């Protein structure tokens, strides 16, 4: 069954849809967690510490966190690999373009591939900035995420990279969520409007929720 899934273009789309939904669920949790920054350093840092102790005493310190990280890495790799292979196939299937060109499809649909690449690069930067601190502006302090977040969004490029990436995320989810529903066979004529609305609401809420953090720092509400 695994072979059939990976050998077929429909199966690869299924892999994309499932991995996309996993990442989407994670993003909802991530976004809600981020908003705790508005309740001060104490609560935000406490939340960040709690993430490492989830599941204790059954789970050891950071086990749950690493489990989530492993699932996410698998999801990102599966999503990107199938996207790359499907895109290669799509481009090969339509080698010659029409002479008479027309504007096609919605902006969200047309930017799925490049938007995905931008998001992939963003994730690398984001991890190096706020997880490992490798490219962090100013001194990265392990265990003080509140200060680290404020430092990042006190630089103009930190704000620009983040906000651009979150807009790309919104567009990606707008087409991606609805598409995943179609790929998994959940869509139908009667559900189409509801699914499109849900995709738009998710895209809007996630983008707004994530952007609220740099906006908070820029306006001085979070400092």
């Amino acid at each position, binding site marked *: 069954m695994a072979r059939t899934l990976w050998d077929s273009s*429909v199966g690869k789309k299924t892999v994309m849809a499932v991995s996309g939904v996993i990442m989407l669920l994670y993003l909802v949790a991530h976004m809600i967690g981020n908003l705790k920054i508005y309740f001060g350093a104490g609560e935000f840092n406490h939340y960040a510490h709690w993430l490492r102790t989830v599941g204790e005493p059954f789970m050891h310190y950071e086990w749950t966190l690493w489990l989530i990280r492993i699932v996410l890495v698998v999801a990102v790799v599966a999503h990107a690999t199938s996207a790359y292979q499907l895109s290669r196939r799509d481009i090969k299937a339509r080698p010659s373009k029409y002479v008479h060109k027309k504007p096609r499809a919605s902006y969200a649909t047309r930017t799925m591939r490049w938007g995905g690449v931008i998001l992939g690069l963003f994730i690398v930067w984001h991890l190096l900035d706020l997880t490992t601190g490798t490219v962090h502006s100013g001194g990265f302090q392990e265990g003080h995420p509140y200060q680290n977040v404020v430092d990042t969004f006190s630089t103009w490029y930190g704000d620009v990279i983040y906000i651009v990436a979150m807009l790309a995320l919104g567009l990606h989810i707008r087409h991606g969520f609805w598409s995943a529903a179609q790929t998994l066979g959940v869509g139908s004529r009667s559900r189409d409007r509801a699914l499109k609305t849900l995709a738009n609401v998710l895209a809007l809420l996630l983008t707004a929720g994530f952007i609220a953090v740099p906006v908070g720092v820029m306006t001085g509400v979070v400092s």
Partner: protein
Amino acid sequence: MKLTLRVWRQKNADAEGAMSTYEVDDISPDMSFLEMLDVLNEQLILSGEEPVAFDHDCREGICGACSLVINGDAHGPERTTTCQLHMRSFRDGDTIDIEPWRASAFPVIKDLVVDRSAFDRIIQAGGYVTAPTGSAPEAHATPVPKADADFAFEHAECIGCGACVAACPNGAAMLFTSAKVNHLNVLPQGAPERETRVLDMVAQMDAEGFGGCTLTGECATACPKGIPLVSITSMNKEWLRATRKAGKR
């Protein structure tokens, strides 16, 4: 009407093609698009040039032979087949671009004619029902719920013209394949091959070099028979169901 036509000319499958410009005059707005091309070809024959090759057959919108991309749209600006498109959809003095279907699975044979036998092979892979030959069975012997009959008929309307592939930015044949799969999979007559049909037809579709679906919806917009985009969703559902069942076996 006086029109400027820019037509894709290509000697054969291996030759390089290019757009050639022709002028046609005295075109009636009541002519069909193909009749307008007939006028052009008569003109070309009289001047000793090679006429433009294009596919056509019934000229009443039911056979799926005609296949032109007109000003970037498969079958042109109206939602119908090229043969049912009339010159009143254009204006006097217009320049019209005419190109063949573009997809690597539909290679150009000559000018505007492409080889669509990839569709035939998808049908061969599973677009049939197992039925004993002989006299026709009693029509009421197999009850079909009205909703299923309507669903099947909606998909049976597909004439296999390939406009969906031509319109798709990925050259995907998902709408065509889904129409054929859904048509038979919903009916009791198609039940014995319900799983193998969808698996084999999708596998053949992939093998022919068609692209994948990115749900841009261009196919359903171009389809002269109005096969809806949600057909692809229904086929995905059938494919997942069949894959699950095949895994259990």
